[in-house]
C-alpha cells in the first residue's frame, strides 16, 4: 500500500482547546477513507492541516509534499470540496468553467460540460440562482473534470435531500473513483455511505479512536445480540459497549473469537454506524 497521507504526531490547538492531540494515521493510495467523528472532534482541523489551510505541529506528508511549505505544488494534485456552498454566489456557471480552465493544469473542460448537460443547470445561471443541490452538482462537475490524485471532501452533502445525496455518492464511486485515486471524506451521515468506505478513521476529542480497513473490522469487532436473561453471563467477557433494544441486548466486543461468543446469542459484524456509536459512547463515559 502506497501512502498518500502520512501523519505523525499531528497537533493543533485553538486557544486552550486541543483540536488535534498527537494524531497519527496513514491513508493509502486507491482507498476511500471515511474520517468519522462527532462535532468538534477535529475532523475538519485534520483536513485543513492536510490541505495546508491551517498551521499545525507534527509531521505531515501529503503525496510526499509538506502542506505547510509546498501548498502550491500540492494543490495541483489535490482537489477539495468544503461543506456545501462555498462557490461564490456571484459566479456564473460558464465563469466557473472559464476560471478552472484558466488556472488548473489538470482541468478537462469537456468532462465538466458533459456532466452539467445531464443536469438542469444552465450555463449562464449564477450560483445564487441555483438550489443547494444544484450548487453541489456544479461543484461536483468541476471536481470530476480535475484529474486529481487525492480528493478531500468535508461534509459534501450536508443539507441536501436524499435524492441529491444518493446521486452524489453514486457519481463519485461509479464515474470518479479508480484505483489511482484516493478519496478522504468526512460525514455525519455514516449509515448512508458506509458501504462506500474501504477504510475508516474514527476521531474523537482530537484523538484517533480507531483506524482500520473495513475488511479487517469483522475480525476485530463483534456484535452479539442476545436476550436480557443471557446478558449477565456474556457481560463477563467484557463488552466495551452495550445497548438495549426491544428487550434484547446488543453487546460490542473487541478481539473476541466467534467460538467464545457464539453460544450466547446471535453474532455478526457490527455496521460502521453501530461501531461508531459504540466507540464514541465508550470514550464519552469510560
Amino acid at each position: 500500500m502506497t501512502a498518500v497521507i502520512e501523519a505523525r504526531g499531528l497537533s493543533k490547538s485553538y486557544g486552550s482547546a486541543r483540536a488535534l492531540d498527537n494524531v497519527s494515521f496513514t491513508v493509502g493510495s486507491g482507498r476511500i477513507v471515511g474520517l468519522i467523528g462527532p462535532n468538534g472532534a477535529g475532523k475538519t482541523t485534520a483536513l485543513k492541516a492536510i490541505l495546508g489551510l491551517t498551521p499545525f505541529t507534527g509531521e505531515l506528508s501529503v503525496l510526499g509534499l509538506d502542506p505547510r511549505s509546498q501548498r502550491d505544488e500540492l494543490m495541483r494534485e489535490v482537489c477539495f470540496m468544503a461543506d456545501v456552498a462555498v462557490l461564490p454566489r456571484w459566479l456564473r456557471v460558464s465563469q466557473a468553467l472559464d476560471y478552472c480552465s484558466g488556472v488548473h493544469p489538470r482541468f478537462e473542460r469537456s468532462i465538466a460540460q458533459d456532466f452539467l448537460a445531464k443536469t438542469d443547470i444552465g450555463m449562464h445561471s449564477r450560483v445564487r440562482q441555483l438550489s443547494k443541490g444544484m450548487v453541489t452538482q456544479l461543484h461536483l462537475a468541476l471536481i470530476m473534470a480535475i484529474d486529481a490524485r487525492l480528493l478531500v471532501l468535508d461534509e459534501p452533502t450536508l443539507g441536501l435531500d436524499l435524492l441529491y445525496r444518493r446521486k452524489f455518492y453514486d457519481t463519485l464511486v461509479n464515474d470518479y473513483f479508480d484505483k489511482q485515486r484516493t478519496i478522504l471524506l468526512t460525514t455525519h451521515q455514516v449509515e448512508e455511505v458506509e458501504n462506500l468506505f474501504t477504510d475508516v478513521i474514527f476521531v474523537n476529542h482530537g484523538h484517533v479512536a480507531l483506524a482500520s480497513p473495513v475488511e479487517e473490522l469483522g475480525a476485530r469487532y463483534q456484535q452479539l445480540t442476545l436476550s436480557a436473561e443471557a446478558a449477565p453471563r456474556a457481560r463477563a467477557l467484557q463488552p466495551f459497549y452495550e445497548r438495549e433494544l426491544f428487550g434484547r441486548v446488543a453487546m460490542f466486543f473487541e478481539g473476541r473469537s466467534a467460538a467464545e461468543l457464539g453460544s450466547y446469542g446471535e453474532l455478526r459484524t457490527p455496521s460502521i454506524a453501530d461501531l461508531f456509536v459504540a466507540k464514541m459512547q465508550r470514550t464519552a463515559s469510560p
Partner: protein
Amino acid sequence: MNSTYAQAAASPLPAVNARPRGTTLLTLVRREFWEHRALWIAPLIAALLLVVCATIGTFHMDLDDSRHLTEPQDRVALFTVMQWVVAGVLYVVAVVVLSFYLLDCLYAERKDRSILFWKSMPVSDGMTVWSKCLVAFVVVPLGVYLLAIVAGFLFSGILAARLALAGAAPILGWDTLEWLRSELAMLLIVILGILWYAPIGACLLLLSAWARRIPFLWAMLPPVVAPLLELIAFGTHHIWNFELQRTAGIWWTLGIAHTHIFSHHGVRPLGTLLAEADFGAAFSDSGLWLGVVFTAAAVFAATRIRRYRDDT
C-alpha cells in the same frame, strides 16, 4: 517517507506543470471583473452620462468672457481643457470604485467562505493578491485613461457639432501636437497618482485581508479619530499634517499651484504642464518612493495573512 513518495510518483498519473503564469494571471484578473462589476460598469456609466450631457444638455457661455476664443490657439487650448474635465470626472469615479474594491477584495471571500473554493485551486496566495494589485494599480487606471480619451472625443465632438448646427461661432479647435502633449501630461500625472496613492490603496488591501468585520470602519475611523485625539491631548496637528501630506503632497512637489490655465491672457493648453510642472522633482521625490516600498511591504503582509489565516 522518501520511498513512499517515489512509489506515489511512479503511479500512472503524469506530472503536470502549472499553467503558464500569464494564463493564470489573465484568468485571475478576469475573475476580479466578474466579481466586482462596478470596476468597469461605473466608469462606463459615468462616460455615458457625460456623452448624454453633451448631446442634450444646455450650456450657457458668457461671450464677454470667451472673447479670446476668437484666437485659434485658444480654441485648441479649450479643447485640451475639455478632455481633462471629462477625464477628471472619470478618475473621481475610478478612485471611489477602486477604494471600495480594495477594501472588499480579500474580505468578501472570507465572509462568504468562497476562499475555500479559491484555495482549492492551484493558485498561490501571492499570485492572487498580485492579481488584485494589478487590477487596482494598472488595469483600471490605464483602462480609465483610455476610456477618457474616447469619452473626451465624443463629448467635445458632439458639442462642436451642436454649435455648428446652431450656427454659433466655434469654440473648440484641433491641433494634433497639442492634443498629444496634453495626453502625455495627463498620462504622467496618472502614473504619478498611481505611485503616490499606492500606499493608501495597499492599506485598504491590508485591512481587507486583516479585518474580522467591517473593514470600511477600520478604513474610515482611525484617520479621522487619530488627529482629533492628538489635537485634544496635545493640541498639535502632526497626524493631520502627515495625512494631508500623504494625500496632496505630491501635487505640491509638482509645483503647479500657480500655473493658471485660464487668465485674462487667454486659455493655455494643458500640454504646457509638460514644461511647467516639475515632473523630475515629483518622480524623484523620496516620499513617493518610500510610499512604494511601504506598498510592497503591505501587499506582502496581505499575502501572508491570506496564506496563514484560518477563520473559515
